């Protein structure tokens, strides 16, 4: 568990960095997630106070966007593209394979906390799909063997 005083202090520092910026909430949430790996519950009232918003408004924004997590992810995050161009070259097949191998569905983390599997709708790699994003690293032409090797390589 994160210490809520420590969260408050760190979030206040982030808020100070964005002071006076027009429409700063998204950049603030990105910074918080970069620091904590997710947006901790304890950060919401601090942001609300800092930006003169209600806590519900902040929660509404956090929950609207797919990128923001309210819980930490696994040690590694594997995102597989599910969009049409990747589907045309076997993305669904690869996704089924990965789900079986890891024993998780999309939006789930393996029991050992090692890998979180997530869908993504387009990485702009539509002429070299199926595409994946593994811990921020772009991978094109993913097939079963390639994704097995990648998952194997994650410590």
């Amino acid at each position: 568990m994160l210490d809520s005083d420590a969260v408050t202090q760190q979030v206040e520092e982030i808020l100070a960095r964005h002071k006076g910026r027009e429409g700063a909430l998204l950049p603030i949430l990105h910074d918080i997630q970069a620091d904590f790996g997710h947006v901790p519950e304890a950060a919401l009232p601090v942001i609300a106070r800092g930006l003169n918003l209600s806590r519900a408004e902040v929660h509404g924004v956090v929950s609207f966007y797919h990128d923001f997590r309210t819980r930490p992810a696994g040690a590694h995050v594997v995102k597989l593209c599910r969009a049409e161009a990747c589907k045309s070259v076997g993305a669904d097949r690869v996704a089924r394979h990965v789900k079986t191998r890891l024993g998780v569905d999309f939006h789930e983390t393996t029991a050992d906390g090692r890998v979180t599997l997530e869908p993504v709708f387009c990485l702009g790699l539509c002429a070299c799909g199926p595409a994946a994003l593994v811990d921020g690293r772009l991978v094109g032409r993913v097939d079963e063997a390639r994704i097995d090797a990648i998952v194997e390589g994650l410590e």
Partner: protein
Amino acid sequence: MKIYLPLDSAAVALGADEIAAAIHAHARARGVHVTLVRNGSRGMVWLEPLAEVETPEGRLAFGPMTLADVPALFGDLSQHPKALGKTEDLPWMKGQTRLTFARVGVIDPLSLDDYRAHGGLKGLERALAMEPAAMVAEVTDSGLRGRGGAGFPTGIKWKTVSEARADQKYIVCNADEGDSATFADRMLMEGDPFTLIEGMTIAGLACGATRGFVYIRSEYPVAIRVMQDACRIAREEGVLGTRVLGRGPAFDIEIRVGAGAYVCGEETSLLNSLEGKRGVVRAKPPLPALQGFLGKPTVVNNVISLATVPVIFERGAAFYKAFGLGRSRGTIPLQIAGNVRHGGLYEVAFGLTLGEIVDTIGGGTASGRPVKAVQVGGPLGAYFPRSLFDTPFGYEEFAGKDGLIGHAGLSVFDDTTDMLDMARFAMEFCAIESCGKCTPCRIGAVRGVETIDRIARGDIAATPLLIDLCNTMKSGSLCALGGFTPYPVMSALTHFGDDFLYEKEAAE
């Protein structure tokens, strides 16, 4: 020795960073001095990573590069196993009219000197000597229409903002390129970021705006980094800042990062997101041109629209307008994707037929099987069967066939594709990404998935219900997400009706 190797996301996804490291390692081991320029991609994605070596005869291309092909770059180049000849002589390059993408893949994306040496900033120099009304007229006369998909005349939008009276106006670049099969915005930002900066600056001068934002989707980490670096350099070199190019009015640009919501590619939800709110669509009117970001007059243009402005100012509106067909003027960067042999970016004047694009330029499917369908315009675009391959690529021409060109992305599918599954996916995607404002979109998409599942189980009574639902979504949604999801669904049902009958047939 000078070697070019793309920093483009597609090249990186296919191993360009590893090739770059190997080139440096070999150069060190051999004691050869190598200047490695990480350029944009030439757009031939099937040849990525594509290395180019500068020679007195011109740039020679080698690809697709593997680690094993690196040592031979330091030997007799004519014997290199991946030698393709001069880059500019490749058929893919020779067939194009590169106006917006003229510098992409050619220059070092972050060298302002390189940019100037290839015609950069000439458009802005000319604009600085013009009155705002003349600048707006130049864009209107060029016939440029919004390349994000809507096809609204760019000059009309600028005119509205230019003539609006306000203490602050904004230029917002929509770089939330979420449509599958589209990557032109990404390639432009990664390969020639100063062109976008120049286009936005001209827009600022024409409209009296001093602040600009580029809203880039978070799924584009490379584009974000390159654009941030380019803005910093442009500021340091005095292109941006309190006096544009040292003598104009003020203009500066800030890069903002999205957070994974597809609907934020719609201009009004993008504005809400930029303001730090939920990316919910706004009703129009008021038009963003009059009440946009923070309620102020705002130009919201797509990356390609803005990045085409410099060449229009450099070569003149008449030059640009001379390309194209009908009311689709100029060039369009086609993005050929999916199950296709030669996928990538191909900039050409409007007017090629769909068949020429898919069969001739794309070379048919990658799987070698027959093409079954081509989805044009992203997830909200219609599926075209072979019988419509004579449709010329233009806004009105595709609308006339119950389709749209959107952002000019094409996904090719072979004959193993189940079109009922694709129709179901369109509804599922809409349900996941709906902002929730309009009931036909928020609930209709969920019902759409259920109704298609009923059809899949052989319940043909569900088909009229699906058609009725599509009509409701089309006419009852504020934005294109709910309003256009019926395009892929209805086109699949209309052109590939057999795929909606298979369970019934199996039961008989």
